[in-house]
């Protein structure tokens, strides 16, 4: 008897499925693109667009893409991004850098990039000597201010600052390495 019930239920389910309609081909959902895909050539450039437009940040842009952070950094923010130049990345051993760009090391790469990003806008003139900023990866950086020049963690210098629609980019001349612990 139980079998009959099951059989009947299977039939019922089949019929149920049979009368659902499928969406036509042309109405397929579009590829999942976030705010980085927005077509807008009149608004002020966002952080990603600023970086992409800079000839000195090809490595950083490649890293942001490899870490799948393009959409996040195109978002409303606001962000303060410390952006190492290609020259700064060149100071990192090539093998280390190549390794970080491998898909299996995406988490480590993200950790480094997040260490370069603060949520909130900190302009250069607002920075104070000894000021700590808790970065997206929850580790602190320490700013040094002397004679109007700003250093990060005592190793990197802010060489330029570029405002963006969703925050600000401070160009730095060295890559920041997050503390182990």
């Amino acid at each position, binding site marked *: 008897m139980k079998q*009959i019930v099951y059989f009947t239920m299977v039939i*019922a389910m089949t*019929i149920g499925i049979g009368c659902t*309609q499928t969406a036509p081909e042309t109405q*397929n959902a579009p590829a999942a693109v976030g705010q980085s895909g*927005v077509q807008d050539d009149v608004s002020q450039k966002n952080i990603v667009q600023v970086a992409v437009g800079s000839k000195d940040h090809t490595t950083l842009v490649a890293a942001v893409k490899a870490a799948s952070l393009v959409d996040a950094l195109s978002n409303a923010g*606001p962000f303060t991004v410390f952006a190492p130049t290609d020259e700064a990345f060149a100071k990192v051993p090539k093998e280390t850098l190549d390794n970080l760009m491998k898909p299996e090391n995406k988490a480590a790469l993200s950790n480094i990039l997040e260490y370069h990003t603060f949520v909130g806008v900190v302009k250069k003139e607002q920075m104070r000597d000894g000021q700590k900023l808790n970065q997206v990866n929850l580790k602190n950086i320490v700013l040094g201010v002397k004679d109007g020049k700003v250093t990060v963690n005592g190793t990197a210098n802010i060489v330029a600052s570029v405002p963006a*629609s969703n925050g600000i980019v401070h160009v730095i001349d060295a890559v920041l390495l997050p503390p182990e612990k």
Partner: protein
Amino acid sequence: MKKVLFFLGGVLLVIVVLWQCKTKGAASAASDDAAQKAYIAPGKYDEFYNFVSGGFNGQVSVYGLPSGRLLKIIPVFSVFPENGYGFSEETKSMLNTSHGWVPWDDQHHISMSLSDGVQDGRWMFANANNTPRVARVDLKTFRTMEILEIPNSGGNHSSPFITENSEYIVAGTRFSIPMDDQPDVPIETYKQNFRGTASFISVNPQDGRLDLAFQVLLPGLNLDLSRSGKGPSHDWFFFSCYNSEGANTLLEVNASQNDKDFIVAVNWKKAEEYAKAGKGVTKKVRYAHNTYDEKTHTATTNWGTEAIMLDPKVLKDFVYFIPCPKSPHGCDVNPTGEYIVGSGKLAAIIPVFSFAKMQKAIADRNFEGEYDGIPVLKYDAVLHGEVQKPGLGPLHTEFDANGNAYTSFFVSSEIVKWNVQSLQVLDRAPTYYSIGHLCVPGGDTKKPWGKYVVAYNKITKDRYLPTGPELAQSAQLYDISGDKMKLILDFPTVGEPHYANAVPAELLQKNSTKFFKLEENNHPYVAAGEGKAKVVREGNKIHVYMTAIRSHLTPDNIEGVRVGDEVYFHVTNLEQDWDVPHGFAIKGANTAEILIMPGETQTLVWKPEKAGVVPFYCTDFCSALHQEMQGYMRVSPAGSNVPLKFSTGAEPAATPESK
């Protein structure tokens, strides 16, 4: 026993599933492929913008077709808490009238700007029915840019219909009244003293600015709806009217006595010539003309004092009456401009008049008589034919590009499709819920876009999940691409839609403004950068030049304000990025809140009534640190000597710290 129950349960399940399959279509009355036709996948766009009048809410709402998704509510004749329209100091003047400030009106019809009889996507016009006004909405910003009050009008229903090249929009008065220069007469002298007017408002072809060009003085009729001619009938405007009985009480009965009322045919080209030749009478009037400046982000009111009145009893040969059965409501002209469809809301037929025949009848002076000094054409001489037994209570007609008409029937709740040439009924579609207006995209123009007809029903009842006594209105979308109309979607609408129209998306979307340029902001209290933010005292007025940018307000600490002061927060949104508005609110503000678009400045007035420290903040979730976008204003007692100071962040922006 248990097993038997299981078996029965199983059989029941099969029956239920089968029944659902079988009856799905019938129960919803929708066509089988309805879901596919109305479905717009996530991230895809609708084909049409549907501009829908809001009726008693005084706004216009914008939906996507075919999805029925609500895209925008445009405040026109009513204040709107969503964006501060009518609450901010800059927008209050938009609602000025000669009767004072009117925060809420009744908005019935819209028209889209036309070039050579085809939608050009520049402006939308809207009418206020109660306190007579017309408005112009810019379709780049979807904002109300201009509102013009209509003098000598008792209620602006027959409006804002438009001529073929947007030369004029019209305003026909629904309630005849004594004219503004002799207002106080006994009501029972209706027939002697009450008049209707048809106003022609010119539209500047460059910037769309409205101007009251002239008014046509008519007998005490109630003008209802109207349409301009097209092509051969380009020079003419046609107004339906009721109450040819001249009743001033219980119109429900007394205005339904005559077999026929009229369609008023006005040769506006000739009227224009009379007006330009100075043949009108200049009447002393007073009306408000409110315009919004996109550079100062501020509305101003100018006052009109004169109106040119043209009397067809004196200036002959530009107004004729066409007899039309039983209190005509809709008065619609087909795309070729040859046929005029009158919809007598109490009639059992739909009369279709021929423009060519009308011209001949005028030339032959084929009149059946005069009504209050205006020639009445012979019905049979101007009639193309009648649609027999079309339905009950015809109201409005729209057209497709294939020679067909779609008429709404309120009493029999249906849309009837018929052929304009043959007058044969081709199809009927039930709307169930007492349809009022209907809309075929571009269905009032020379070039209907077709594809859909939308029914705007007056009743909702059980159509959606109940929400207490007050329900959303029910709109219904039909596919008209085939021979038969097919219901494909129901969607709720806000307010109470009357006339609506739809514009192809590609005509508008490419022009849509993303933000206002900060360098073009000429607001007198703009702060075009954080360095420009300041607080200035002028007597008991405090002007706060404030800026907003992700994610802080500048200044965000303000002291030195006293009880008795009047504080003006002029907030400039410094963003130059698409879709990043900021809001502003302060505790206890009796006015409201404001919303500020990127590059714009808006002002909120606040009068502190007691000493304390009062928080203010951004009300629009703008960014990850939106919650942090806040500040404090210290209010000291009246007469206090706490110095005025303000700052954001570590460094004070002005006066040195007081103790």
